């Protein structure tokens, strides 16, 4: 009996204009945008590759260890074509050196883009799904019950020995089957474009991630179908149902996400919090600086200069760098000499002593401020952002968006993985420095005698988190979507069983 019902509903749906229109528009939008997004991805990848090369060459040019300052680059995520998330937005290169703990807020953009282009909004495939799938689901659902009631066929069907639950189930299954056609067809075309593109290389894990995205899309679709069905059930006439569904669609998809964030979130970080955190970090560095100056005064070479009367060609720097917008205070000191006069040779050990004393302290002070900074960043940047994301989850669109971001690895976690890797790399470099005891050597600040073998240093590599972690991150949102599905279905079922026809 259920099969007969499903077949009837399926035929009913497949022959409609809205089905054809849905398939057409999904294909059109997804294909057109995939082409655009692929182009964009290619451009970003090319920018990444050039940046990678220039940065590697730059390191090779350096002569002394103290100049070590590797720019590491974040590769674009191929799955950002599905959900760009934060992948495109946040900085994609960050400096790594021993005196500074790098974070997401210290990253910069490759200087290859036109910054004005940011005024245009960018679209990804999930955005198309968010807007169109929900709309189509509602268009399929609004007359599911109200229409039959109006035409009187519902009464006719119920006069047979059919269980009410079966009618609902049949309607749901057949509509979902129909809705799957545009979804899968457009995804299929997108995948063909993706796999035929030479610059995109998808690993088997990526296919699993895309599978996760498809499953989440299904759950999302089904939520909107149920919402439409509920509306169709409670309204007497199809025209009312249609009107109500369109308003609810507009509210959930268009209005709510933008409105809630505009109302709830302050646009500037709290001044007082920033100031106090900055002050604390400055104090730590000032203390460090006192210690440093104390050493310089007490050493055999008079004066506070870090040149130690060495006659040489080169540069030096000592300064406290502050950037309140990113909650960043750090101290840079260093000497970088290309040639040293013969006469100054006896002075060189003084500089060696200085750096042997100083650099471990620089590292430990950097770590000390990092503890403070990490806390501050969490309070000032991460917390408001996660509150925003929770607020967005009151609309299914927000849940869907964050789940697909988690699958694609373009959410905050995914981006932070990269910066965690950058910090680990810094730690490895520091360990290498300690192991080879370079702080006290001449090579630390002078490149005149023997060039540094940069290839001996640990090399940076970054791999996106594996699929298990992605699943773990996406699971709460997926479960939430499923839960909403179950609740909606139960409500619909209860109302339908009790309703008079």
């Amino acid at each position, binding site marked *: 009996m259920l099969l007969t019902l499903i077949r009837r509903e399926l035929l009913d749906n497949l022959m409609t204009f*809205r089905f054809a229109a849905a398939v057409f528009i999904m294909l059109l939008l997804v294909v057109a945008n995939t082409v655009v997004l692929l182009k964009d991805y290619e451009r970003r990848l090319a920018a990444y590759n050039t940046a990678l090369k220039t940065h590697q060459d730059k390191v090779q040019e350096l002569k002394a260890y103290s100049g070590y300052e590797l720019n590491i680059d974040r590769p674009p995520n191929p799955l950002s074509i599905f959900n760009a998330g934060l992948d495109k937005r946040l900085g994609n290169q960050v400096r790594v050196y021993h005196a500074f703990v790098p974070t997401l807020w210290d990253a910069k953009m490759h200087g290859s883009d*036109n910054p*004005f282009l940011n005024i245009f909004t960018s679209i990804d495939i999930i955005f198309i799904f968010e807007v169109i799938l929900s709309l189509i689901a509602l268009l399929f659902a609004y007359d599911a019950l109200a229409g039959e009631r109006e035409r009187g066929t519902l009464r006719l069907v119920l006069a047979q020995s059919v269980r009410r639950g079966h009618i609902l189930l049949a309607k749901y299954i057949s509509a979902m089957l129909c809705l799957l056609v545009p979804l899968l067809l457009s995804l299929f075309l997108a995948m063909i474009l993706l796999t035929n593109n030479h610059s995109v290389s998808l690993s088997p894990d990526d296919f699993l991630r895309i599978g996760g995205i498809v499953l989440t899309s299904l759950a999302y679709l089904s939520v909107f179908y149920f919402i439409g069905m509920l509306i169709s059930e409670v309204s007497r006439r199809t025209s009312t149902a249609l009107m109500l569904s369109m308003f609810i669609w*507009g509210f959930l998809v268009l209005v709510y996400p933008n409105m809630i964030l505009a109302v709830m979130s302050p646009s500037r970080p709290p001044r007082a919090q920033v100031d106090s955190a900055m002050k604390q970090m400055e104090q730590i560095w000032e203390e460090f600086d006192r210690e440093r100056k104390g050493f310089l005064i007490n050493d055999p070479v008079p004066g506070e200069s870090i040149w130690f009367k060495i006659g040489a060609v080169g540069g030096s720097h000592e300064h406290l760098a502050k950037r309140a917008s990113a909650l960043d205070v750090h101290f840079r000191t260093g000497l970088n000499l290309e040639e040293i006069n013969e006469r100054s040779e006896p002075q060189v050990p003084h500089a060696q002593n200085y750096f042997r004393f100083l650099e471990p302290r620089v590292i430990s002070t950097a770590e000390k401020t990092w503890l403070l900074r990490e806390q501050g960043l969490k309070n000032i940047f991460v917390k408001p952002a996660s509150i925003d994301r929770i607020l967005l989850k009151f609309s299914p669109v927000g849940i869907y968006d964050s789940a697909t971001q988690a699958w694609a690895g373009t959410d905050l976690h995914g981006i932070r993985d990269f910066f965690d890797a950058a910090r680990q790399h810094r730690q490895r470099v520091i360990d290498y420095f300690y192991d080879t005891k370079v702080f006290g050597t001449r090579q630390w600040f002078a490149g005149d005698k023997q060039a540094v073998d940069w290839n001996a240093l640990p090399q940076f590599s970054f791999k996106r988190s594996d699929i298990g972690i992605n699943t773990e991150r996406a699971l709460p949102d997926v479960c939430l979507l499923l839960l909403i599905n179950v609740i909606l279905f139960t409500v619909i079922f209860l109302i339908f069983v009790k309703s008079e026809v």
Partner: protein
Amino acid sequence: MIWHIAKRELYDNLNNLRFVLAIMLLIGLMITNAIVYLREHPTRVQQYRSSATESLEVLKARTDLYDIALNGPGDLYKQPAPLRFCADGGESFLSEFVDGGYWMWGYGDGFRDFWLLNYPASNPNLLNIRPDVTKVDWVFVVGYVLSLLALLFTFDSVSGERERGTLRLMLANSISRHTVLFGKFLGALISLCIPTVIAILINVLVISTSSAVHLSSEAWERLGIIIVIALVYTCLFLALGLLVSTRTQRSSVSLVVLLLAWVIFVIFVPSTLASIASGLSSPISFDELQKRQNQLHRELWDAYRDRTSGDETLRRTQGRSEYIIEQQEQQERSRREHLNQQITQVQQARSVTRVSPTAILQHSLEAFAGTGFTRHLQFLENTQRYAREYREFVENTDRSDPESPHLIGVPEGMSKKPVSPEAIPKFEDTFSLGKDFNTAAIDLLLLTLFVMVLLSAAYLAFVRVEV
């Protein structure tokens, strides 16, 4: 008769659920808009004032002509637009200032590059890990929400009557068809105008009663123009709704067609076309610009190297002066070229998006609100004009001193007379309504054209339709 039909439509709509929902939605959005504006605008103005005065103070403190010519006017700030609640225009991605004190190379021995205009980029996204949102400004409310409402108000106006059979009844009377159509159009327009006007009034009331914001009479004029544009834009969607409603047999089909057209033209066309069009041209990257500037600098320096040193004082001073002037011109030119390339890319993308009425609405609302890209170009032009004035001032002051050797670029070649701080030209960023009209003219014409075409298409369709 036309009024009679319009009145009937109006009463019909007033009793409808959609009218109540529309009022609630629009009022909610407009109040949000006002609250956000009142929260952000005063701090914006304050910040502009304090930074503009600060950079003016620095300028006023200078009395030495060489110092003035060397360091430039400092940061030049963009005046924040009081009507930013109408159109946000992506202002946060457009820099708030131009750096008029930028220099790159020093040569020791008391001479250095002169200042030049540097156009910093603004990218708040680098620090922002919050989710992406569209700003709730009038462009959003009118462009997205009101257009959707317009379609919801008209999709069944003809096809619904046909379905119910009342269309036949009405046309059986001695009413001309165009009267019916325009009556329906007017009825829908008025019934949509009521919630819109209420929402706009509440919005403007909240904003203007706040003591923190003062709207000048020119701002009110601009606001009036913006409302008219919004009205024309709404008419466009009403006409589209009528056209599709006439051409389709059933209202459900009509709504599906309209919604899909809406989604394509309102949501997808502006951004998709913009990304396609911006892919067509590729300006040189910032890294390349720096490389090119370094090369230019090296070539010029090589050409002047022997003339800028040596023991012969006059020859050396002359050489240095010529070098500095040429270096300044050359470097500034290459920066401006780079900027122009970027601007061309954006303008190409913007002109292509004019296929979508929403993009047209956005452009014209931005033009009258004094925000967005075209306004930013005006600001850049203002700074460039000011830079010329400033340099002319230096030249003229030097020329008017008979004791000066008239060799600008080096301290010993310039007038030593103290300059009075009042005489130095001051930068002030200005708006001009006339200019904004010019930039928006093509958009306004296009919008009107769209409305005309759709209305006449609806008319033709309705006249020829079989009932």
